[in-house]
């Protein structure tokens, strides 16, 4: 064991050629991967680019591929990786803007498609509070924890082979609102999530759940969505609500 970590960072030059830059970071100066990157930026190489903001796993900005797995740089303790040479790469399935910074716009476009907000059938013209029991709250509470970091999209093998697939976070968001007793928009969302690029593309690899830093379970949500979509489809065929 040495007293330094080696950060091996995937980068691209102006011609688009991929290369790895290696930096030595003293172990006693850092705790998390983000601190290591900031140490490099401040002391070794000012040209290194990465995105971060809150440093406390809330903003969802610093997602990157750390030692072969999508993780948040701010909450990944370097010592926990149990190695001195850490390979860091930009998130998979996103276009790289520069170094570790990726373009997350396509992710948010997919997110918007599932209408991630409460849809009412009374045009919001209700004259009293919408009651919600603790049980009703817990129906969707887990899925409301999503910080839109997009790690699940990078971990999903289907996203890798079919970029049109809506993906785990948007589908979990769809379930978060469908499971909310105040929401009446299930039939609108099912049109989106039950399409060709929706839940039917999920093959339950479960990597989205494995990598989620907030403990959200998108693979569970997708299975619940399937059942709900089936019920709505059957109801539309055989009548009923």
């Amino acid at each position, binding site marked *: 064991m040495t007293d330094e970590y080696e950060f091996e960072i995937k980068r691209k030059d102006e011609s688009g050629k991929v290369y790895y830059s290696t930096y030595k970071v003293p172990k006693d100066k850092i705790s998390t991967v983000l601190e290591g990157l900031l140490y490099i930026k401040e002391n070794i190489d000012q040209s290194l680019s990465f995105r971060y903001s809150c440093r406390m796993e809330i903003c969802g900005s610093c997602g990157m591929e750390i030692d072969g797995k999508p993780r948040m740089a701010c909450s990944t303790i370097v010592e926990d990786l149990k190695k001195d040479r850490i390979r860091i790469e930009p998130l998979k399935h996103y*276009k790289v803007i520069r170094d570790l910074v990726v373009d997350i716009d396509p992710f948010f476009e997919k997110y918007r498609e599932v209408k991630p907000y409460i849809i009412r059938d009374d045009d919001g013209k209700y004259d009293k509070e919408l009651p919600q029991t603790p049980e009703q709250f817990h129906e969707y509470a887990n899925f409301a924890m999503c910080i839109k970091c997009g790690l699940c999209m990078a971990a999903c093998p289907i996203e890798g082979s079919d970029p049109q697939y809506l993906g785990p976070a948007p589908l979990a968001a769809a379930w978060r609102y469908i499971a909310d007793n105040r929401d009446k928009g299930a039939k609108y969302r099912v049109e989106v999530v039950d399409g060709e690029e929706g839940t039917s593309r999920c093959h339950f690899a479960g990597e989205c759940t494995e990598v989620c830093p907030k403990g959200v379970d998108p693979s569970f949500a997708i299975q619940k969505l399937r059942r709900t979509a089936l019920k709505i489809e059957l109801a539309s065929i055989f009548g009923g609500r």
Partner: protein
Amino acid sequence: MVEANKEMKEGISAWAKFYRKGTGYLAFAFHRLSGLVILFYLYLHYTVLSNLLRGQATYNAIVKSITYGPYDSFLALDFLLALVIFYHGANGVRLALNEFGIGMYHHKALFFTFEIIAMILLGLFDYYALQFVGVGF
């Protein structure tokens, strides 16, 4: 539908990257790979059957050469085929149950349970298959 960024497509090679992946991913990857093996065998099977068009004698000669020689070593591949079918079938049942909302909280335990049952059945299948071709124990 959103126009996704196609340049980020990893392709099917991404299925075979197992480093730092969980049980669910391994189940998924082997399910796909075993599916491809079954698909390949299906077309191989059609190819053999299509020899019926060339007459009964030709077809019988091919079947005999595969079963009794000189190409009877192909029978070993049948055991590999049985392995992937048992694996694929057991995991398929588990996935179907999960998709209907059954056992979702215990999908990993369900995976191991179904696969252990499938491998026991595979062992029985292999035993009787070997008895059938005359290999004694």
